[in-house]
C-alpha cells in the first residue's frame, strides 16, 4: 500500500513514513490530522504549557491523596480504618498537606498562564519573561475577590485544574497583545552589547498596561456577576434537581451529563460530575438508599440508572475518563520511555481516582487522539453496566461510598459487597484497557513522527 503524504515533509520523512504501517483509514486520518494540528503554534503552546505544569500536577496529586483519602473527613482510609485517626498529628499533617496542595495543584492555572503567555510571546519574538509574568498578574487580578472579610483572597475554583482552559486562552491572548502592541526585543547577544534593562522594560510597557487593564475589567465583571447564578450553576442544578420518573429518562440524563463532564474535563474545564464523588447526592439516589436500607438489599431499587450507579461506579476509575485503563494499556504495550515513566508515576494517584498527573503528563488534555477513548471507554463501561443492571446480573450501587475509594472498589462497596459488581468492575477495566490500546499505539506513532520532524527542522 502506498500513501501520498503532505508536501511539507521532505525526502527523509517520506522514507520514514513508509516504515510506519497504518492499520486502517481511521488511524491514518487521526495520525495525519494530529500531525497537521501540531503545526499550529497554538497547539504547540498548549502542549508545552501542559508539560510545564505536569510536575506540579503530579506532586499535587500525591498531596491530594493524603488530603482527601487519608485525612479527609469522609475519606476512604479514615472511614475504613477509623483507629488511625489521632487528632494532633492529623491536624499537623492536614495543615501541611493543605498548604502543599493549594500551592501546587491548587494554583496550577497560574503556572499554566505563565507558560501559555511566555511561549506565545516567544513564538512572536517578543519579551517572553515579561509576558509570562503579566499573564500571572492578569489571572490573579481576574480571580481577585472583592471581599470585605478577607482582604487578600481569590476564588479558589478558577486557580485549580478547573481554570486551565481559561488560563490557556488568556495566556495566548496576552502573548498576542504583546505581539500587537510592542516591537520585537533586540537580540543583545547578537549585538554584543549588554541589554539595557530600562529599554527592555519600556518595549513591553504598553502590552503590560493593556493586559492589566483588560484583566481589571474582567475582574469587575466577575465580581459583579458572582451573586448571579452562573450557567454552570444552572447545569449543576439541573443534574441534581431534575428527576425523571421513567428508567429510560434517567438513563438518558445520566449519559448526557456524563458525556458533558467528559468533554469538559478534556478541555480542562469542569463538568457536572466530579471524579472524587463529592457532589450532592441527587434525590433519586436518596430514594434508592432509603429503599435499600428498608429492604436490606440493593436489588430492585426504584431508580437503577442514577449517576452513582453508572458514572461513579464504572466510569471514573483512575479519575475522569477511566484512565486507569490507559495506564494499564501503556504499561502493557507502550515501548516509549516517556509514556512509561509518566504512567508509572501516575499509578498511585490514579488508584485513588486522581488523574491530574496523567492528564497533563501524557498529555490527555487537548490531545485529539485521546479524545475518542477518553469518552468511549467510560461510555462503553456505563452502557454495559446499565445492561447488566437491567438484566439483573448485578445490583445497582446505592450505598454511600467514601471519597477517594479506589475506582474498582466503588461498585463493590456501593452495592454492600456484591461479588457480581466486583467481577463486573474488573471486566470493565479489561474492556477499557482494550479500548485504550490502539490509541496508545497511535499516540506513539504521532510522537515518533513528530520528534523526527523536529529533528529534521521541518517545523
Amino acid at each position, binding site marked *: 500500500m502506498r500513501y501520498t503524504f503532505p508536501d511539507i515533509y521532505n525526502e527523509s520523512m517520506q522514507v520514514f513514513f513508509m516504515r510506519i504501517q497504518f492499520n486502517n483509514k481511521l488511524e491514518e486520518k487521526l495520525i495525519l490530522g494530529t500531525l497537521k494540528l501540531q503545526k499550529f503554534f497554538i497547539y504547540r503552546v498548549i502542549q508545552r504549557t501542559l508539560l510545564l505544569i505536569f510536575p506540579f500536577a503530579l506532586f499535587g496529586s500525591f498531596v491530594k491523596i493524603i*488530603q*482527601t483519602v487519608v485525612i*479527609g*473527613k*469522609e475519606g476512604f482510609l479514615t*472511614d*475504613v*480504618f477509623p483507629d488511625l485517626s489521632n487528632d494532633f498529628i492529623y491536624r499537623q499533617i*492536614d495543615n501541611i498537606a*493543605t498548604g502543599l*496542595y493549594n500551592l501546587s495543584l*491548587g494554583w496550577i492555572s497560574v503556572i499554566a498562564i505563565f507558560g501559555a503567555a511566555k511561549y506565545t510571546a516567544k513564538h512572536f519574538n517578543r519579551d517572553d519573561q515579561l509576558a509570562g509574568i503579566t499573564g500571572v498578574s492578569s489571572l490573579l487580578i481576574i480571580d481577585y*475577590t*472583592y*471581599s*470585605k*472579610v*478577607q482582604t487578600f483572597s481569590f476564588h*479558589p*475554583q478558577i486557580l*485549580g*485544574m*478547573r481554570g486551565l482552559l481559561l488560563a490557556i486562552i488568556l495566556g495566548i491572548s496576552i502573548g498576542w497583545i504583546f505581539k500587537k502592541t510592542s516591537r520585537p526585543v533586540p537580540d543583545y547577544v547578537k549585538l554584543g552589547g549588554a541589554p539595557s534593562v530600562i529599554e527592555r522594560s519600556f518595549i513591553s510597557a504598553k502590552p503590560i498596561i493593556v493586559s492589566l487593564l483588560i484583566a481589571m475589567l474582567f475582574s469587575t465583571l466577575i465580581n459583579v456577576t*458572582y*451573586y448571579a*447564578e452562573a450557567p454552570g*450553576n444552572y447545569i*449543576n*442544578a439541573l443534574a*441534581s*434537581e431534575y428527576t425523571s420518573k421513567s428508567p429510560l429518562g434517567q438513563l438518558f440524563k445520566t449519559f448526557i451529563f456524563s458525556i458533558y463532564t467528559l468533554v469538559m474535563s478534556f478541555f480542562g474545564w469542569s463538568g457536572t460530575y466530579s471524579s472524587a*464523588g*463529592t457532589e*450532592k*447526592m441527587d*434525590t433519586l439516589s*436518596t430514594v434508592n*438508599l*432509603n429503599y435499600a*436500607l428498608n429492604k436490606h438489599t440493593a436489588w430492585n431499587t426504584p431508580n437503577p440508572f442514577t449517576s452513582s450507579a453508572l458514572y461513579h461506579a464504572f466510569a471514573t476509575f483512575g479519575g475522569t475518563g477511566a484512565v486507569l485503563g490507559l495506564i*494499564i494499556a501503556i*504499561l*502493557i504495550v507502550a515501548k516509549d520511555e516517556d509514556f*512509561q515513566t509518566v504512567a*508509572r508515576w501516575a*499509578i498511585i494517584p490514579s*488508584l485513588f481516582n486522581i488523574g491530574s498527573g496523567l492528564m497533563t503528563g501524557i498529555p490527555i488534555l487537548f490531545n485529539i487522539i485521546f479524545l475518542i477513548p477518553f469518552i468511549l471507554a467510560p461510555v462503553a463501561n456505563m452502557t454495559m453496566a446499565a445492561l447488566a443492571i437491567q438484566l439483573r446480573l448485578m445490583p445497582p450501587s446505592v*450505598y*454511600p461510598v467514601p471519597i477517594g*475509594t*479506589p475506582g*474498582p*472498589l466503588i461498585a*463493590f*462497596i456501593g452495592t*454492600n*459487597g456484591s461479588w457480581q459488581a*466486583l467481577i463486573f468492575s474488573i471486566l470493565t477495566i479489561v474492556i477499557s484497557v482494550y479500548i485504550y490500546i490502539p490509541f496508545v499505539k497511535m499516540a506513539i506513532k504521532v510522537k515518533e513522527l513528530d520528534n523526527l520532524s523536529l529533528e529534521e527542522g521541518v517545523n
Partner: protein
Amino acid sequence: MHTRTLRKNKNFKYLVAMLLFFIILGIPSYIWTRKNVTTLAGRYNSPMTPIIMIPGSSASANRFDDLVKTVNNKYGEHHSLLKLTVHTDDSITYSGKIRANDTQPFFVVGFQNNADGYSNIKKQARWFNIAFNAIKKRYRFNSFNALGHSNGGLIWTMFLENDFNDSNLNINQLLTVGTPYNFEEKNTSNHTQMLNDLIKKRDKIPNNMTYYSIAGTQLYSDDGIVPLGSVDAGKYIYEGKAKHYTLITLTGNKAQHSDMIASNQFITIFHQYIIGNGVNNPNSPDSKQSAIASQ
C-alpha cells in the same frame, strides 16, 4: 504464550502490585461496608448544613429577610433563603429558592396562625414539625443550626423535646433571642405551667447541642417585653442537658425585644456561632474542608 510475553514485560511487576493493592484494600472495604450498612441507618453524603429559623409571635416568614440580606452583604457570603409558611390546615406554601451547591442555606418557617399563648405555641410546634420533615425529606442534610426569635425559641424547645428524635440528624448550635421560658414572670422561682412542662421533658434535649441564649435588657430588668428572669429560666431546661449553655445579655442601642435581631452585636454573635467563621463550623464556606471539597 500470551501470558509469557506479558511476564517478560518489565512492567509486569507494576501490574501485579496494582492487583495486590486492590486485594489488600478490598478485604477491609468489604468488612467495613458490611458493618457500615448494618449499623448506620443511612448516612447521606450531604455537604449541606442549613440554618433553620423560626420567628416570634405575630411575625411572618419574612421576618428574617433583612437579617439574611445584612449577613450576605456584611460578610460577602451568598446564603440563599427559602421561606415556608405552614397553614392551619397543615399545608405548606413556599417562597424563595435554595441555590444549588449552597452549603449553608437559610430556611425560615412561619405560621399562618402566629398568635401568642401557650395553646397556640403548642400548635405551632406541631406545625413546625410538619415543615421540618418536609425540608428534611427534600434536602437531606445530616446536621443543621437553629435560630429562634422570641416564641420561636419556645417552639424549638418543644420540637427538640417532643418530635426531634432522628439519630441521623444533628443539631449543632441553637441560638435564641429573647425567648420567654417563663412568659412574663419576672421571678424565676415562680414556674408557669409551660416552664414546668418543658422542664419535665428536658431529658430529650440533644446532649451534643451547643445552646446560646441572648437576653436583651434596658434598665436592668427586661427588653421592653420579656423579663430577664424569664429568659434566664431557660437554664432549668438546658443546663446540664445541652453540651454547653451560654446566656448572653445584650444592652445598649437596639436592645429592645423586636429590634435586637437588627443590632450589630446580635449579627456578630449570629455569624460567629450559627454561621461560623470557619473555625467553629467545618461546613462554613470559608473553612478549609469545604475549600477542598469545592476543588
